[in-house]
């Protein structure tokens, strides 16, 4: 406990005054507030846009913000457990919710023809294709996690606010890429096959779980053993919970698409083939 109280005091001394603190919080929160306003405005304009997608977007943005500002973010400079909770929110929970909100579909429906074409051209570009390759997305996400905890980057992140923000931004974007690569809800011109995505999902979940156990066994420097143990178990079981949702979404997609391929008459009930998803509605 000793070294932690010391860093706590340290951080407090370097803290800016209350006025600067407030403006820093406002600047940090602004993009998140804008993200919610823009989405909700677009959703309200689209008659029949599913309310659960709007709810997912709002919850996703709030989950992402929790890692940048608010009590959890400030606690994460001292506590490994709080850091891990923030990390789970920004890197796994928020991306899942944001992807479930189908923002690209909403954007394509809301925008006029020219910007919509421009957006779809960007989505079809070779760069987008490379980034949503499941292997690339998994390396950017889980690979970067290994790099963070097994190098001095983690210590740097705890000390320097800018590094903290950059690392969290990286995991927010990498988490979104990873989720889109594995369980795309929006139109996805570069979608990989089911077996490939399933294999990458299992391998990256394995790498995530193994890293959690390594952190349990050998805490990063400057982290107390009990704190590391709770944080590592949170990482392990929290990662399991979110990845379980990803697995269900992936398998449900397999069930839907393999149902479409069944010849008519072999299906026992007509409800076996589900209605087309919203992503298909906009792909024309």
């Amino acid at each position: 406990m000793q070294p932690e109280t010391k860093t706590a005091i340290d951080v407090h001394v370097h803290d800016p005054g209350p006025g600067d603190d407030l403006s820093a919080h406002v600047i940090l929160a602004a993009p998140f507030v804008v993200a919610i306003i823009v989405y909700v405005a677009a959703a309200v304009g689209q008659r029949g846009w599913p309310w659960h997608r709007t709810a997912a977007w709002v919850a996703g943005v709030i989950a992402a913000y929790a890692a940048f500002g608010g009590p959890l973010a400030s606690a994460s400079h001292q506590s490994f457990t709080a850091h891990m909770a923030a990390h789970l929110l920004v890197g796994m929970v928020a991306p899942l919710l944001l992807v479930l909100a189908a923002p690209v579909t909403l954007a394509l429906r809301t925008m006029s023809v020219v910007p919509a074409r421009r957006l779809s051209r960007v989505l079809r570009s070779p760069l987008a294709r490379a980034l949503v390759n499941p292997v690339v997305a998994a390396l950017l996400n889980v690979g970067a996690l290994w790099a963070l905890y097994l190098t001095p980057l983690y210590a740097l992140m705890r000390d320097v606010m800018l590094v903290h923000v950059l690392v969290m931004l990286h995991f927010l974007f990498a988490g979104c890429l990873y989720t889109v690569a594995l369980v795309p809800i929006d139109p996805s011109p570069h979608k990989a096959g089911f077996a490939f995505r399933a294999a990458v999902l299992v391998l990256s979940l394995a790498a995530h779980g193994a890293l959690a156990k390594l952190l349990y066994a050998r805490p990063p420097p400057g982290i107390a053993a009990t704190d590391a143990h709770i944080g590592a178990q949170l990482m392990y079981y929290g990662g399991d919970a979110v990845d379980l949702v990803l697995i269900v979404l992936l398998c449900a997609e397999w069930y839907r698409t393999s149902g479409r391929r069944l010849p008519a008459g072999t299906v026992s009930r007509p409800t076996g083939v589900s209605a087309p998803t919203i992503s298909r509605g906009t792909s024309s």
Partner: protein
Amino acid sequence: MSGTPHTADVSPLRNRSYWAAFLLGIAVMAAIDEIVFHQILAWHHFYDGATPDIALLSDGLLHAAELFVFVFGFFLMLDARRRETFRASFAWAGFLVGLGLFQVWDGVIDHKVLRLHQIRYGVELLPYDIAWNAAGGALLLSGLVWTLMLFRRTRTASPRP
């Protein structure tokens, strides 16, 4: 319909519900292991301080595969029902094989070869090891015997044209 046997009835190993239940058997035993021994009895530990790093990696892989198999087994079962190829007897045989196979794998490979963890700590291990592996072996054997019986039944039920 009644004249020619359905393709689902040709052999248990070519039946989707057999393999779906096999996957579910693996996953259910893995879940029992996690819930009863890790969480309720707390005989197993998250990490016992003696596991080699490479075993941690293989454990992570096994655990991730279990989670996937658990979900995919359910959807495969739904698919078998949708295709009207679901056969309860095939499914139960596959389920028993899955249960037993996981338990024997855990008892022999995880506990003894990789030394990931032991069943319980601070006690004489042998009776626990024997009980665990014998129970798993019994499940596996009964599942395999059932599978063989189904093989013979399907062969006599559908003579070659």
